[in-house]
C-alpha cells in the first residue's frame, strides 16, 4: 500500500476510535466501580492490529489517548495510558506467539487493560485495598473482551484487505 493511502486510512481509524471513546463516555455507568466499561475504542485497535500490524495499532491508540485527554481532560490520562500499553503489549504478543482466536486475544486485552488501571490507581492513591477490585474487573474485562473480540473479528473477516 502507498504511504499516503496508509496515512489516510490510519487517520480515519484514529478519528473513529476517538468518536467511539466519546460515545462511550456518554453512556451511563451500569456498575459503580471505576474501570468497568466496554472499551469500544478497542475494536479499532484490534482491527488495525490484525489488518495492519502492531506498529499501526500502537500509534493509533497512543494518538487517541493523547487527543481525547486534550479534549476531555487529563484526569484519566495515566490510567488510560497504562491500561493501553499493557493491553496492547499483551495482545501483540499473543497474536504473534499463539494461535489463539481474535476473541481470546481481545479478552486478554480487556483483562490486561483493567489490571494496568488498577496498578496505576494503587500507586496514585497508595491504597493497597484496591486490589480487592481485581476479581470484579477481571470478570468485566472478560465479558467486554468477548464482545469487542466478536465485533472486531466480524469487521476483520467481512472487510477486504487494503491494497
Amino acid at each position, binding site marked *: 500500500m502507498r504511504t499516503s493511502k496508509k496515512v489516510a486510512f490510519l487517520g480515519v481509524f484514529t478519528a473513529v476510535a476517538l468518536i467511539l471513546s466519546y460515545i462511550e463516555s456518554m453512556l451511563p*455507568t451500569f456498575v*459503580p*466501580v*471505576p474501570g468497568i466499561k466496554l472499551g469500544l475504542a478497542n475494536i479499532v485497535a484490534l482491527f488495525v492490529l*490484525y489488518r495492519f500490524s502492531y506498529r499501526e495499532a500502537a500509534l493509533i491508540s497512543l494518538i487517541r489517548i493523547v487527543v481525547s485527554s486534550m479534549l476531555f481532560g487529563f*484526569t*484519566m490520562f495515566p*490510567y488510560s495510558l497504562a491500561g493501553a500499553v499493557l493491553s496492547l503489549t499483551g495482545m501483540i504478543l499473543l497474536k504473534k506467539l*499463539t*494461535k*489463539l*482466536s*481474535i*476473541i*481470546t486475544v481481545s*479478552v*486478554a486485552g480487556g*483483562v490486561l487493560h483493567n489490571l494496568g488501571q488498577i496498578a496505576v*490507581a494503587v500507586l*496514585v*492513591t*497508595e*491504597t493497597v*485495598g*484496591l486490589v*480487592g*477490585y*481485581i*476479581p*470484579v474487573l*477481571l*470478570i468485566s474485562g*472478560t465479558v467486554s473482551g*468477548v464482545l469487542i473480540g466478536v465485533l472486531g*473479528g*466480524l469487521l*476483520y*473477516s*467481512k472487510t477486504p484487505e487494503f491494497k
Partner: protein
Amino acid sequence: MKTEVFSLHKRDLIVILSILLLSVIALLVFRLTAKNGGGVTVRVDGEIVAVYSFADEGKYELNGGTNILVIEDGKAYLIDADCPDKLCVKQGRISREGQTITCLPNKLTVTVYGVKNIVEI
C-alpha cells in the same frame, strides 16, 4: 474470508474459562475472609488525611468539601461529591476490612481498617 482467526478452539475456551474461574474463586475468598472493620482511613493523593472510627457517627467533609462522608451503624458511605459521575456515591456502604470507596477524579479513597490495626494507623 479469513474465518480461522475468528473461530474459537478448545484452547480459547480454556483460557477464557480459567480467567473467569480464577476471578470467581478470588471473589469468594475475598468475600468469605473479610471481617467487620473498626473504622475508615481517608487518603488523598496517597496521604492519609483523616481517620474516623465507626464509633464516631456523623457527617464529615473530606478534602476541603469535595466529598461528603457519613458514618452510621458501623458503615461508611459518601453522600455527595463534586465530580460529574458521582461513582463514589454509587459505590454504596462499606463496613468490612479492606473494602474501599474510590473517587479517582479527586484521587481520594476511603478504606475500612481492621479492628486490630487501629494502633498502627
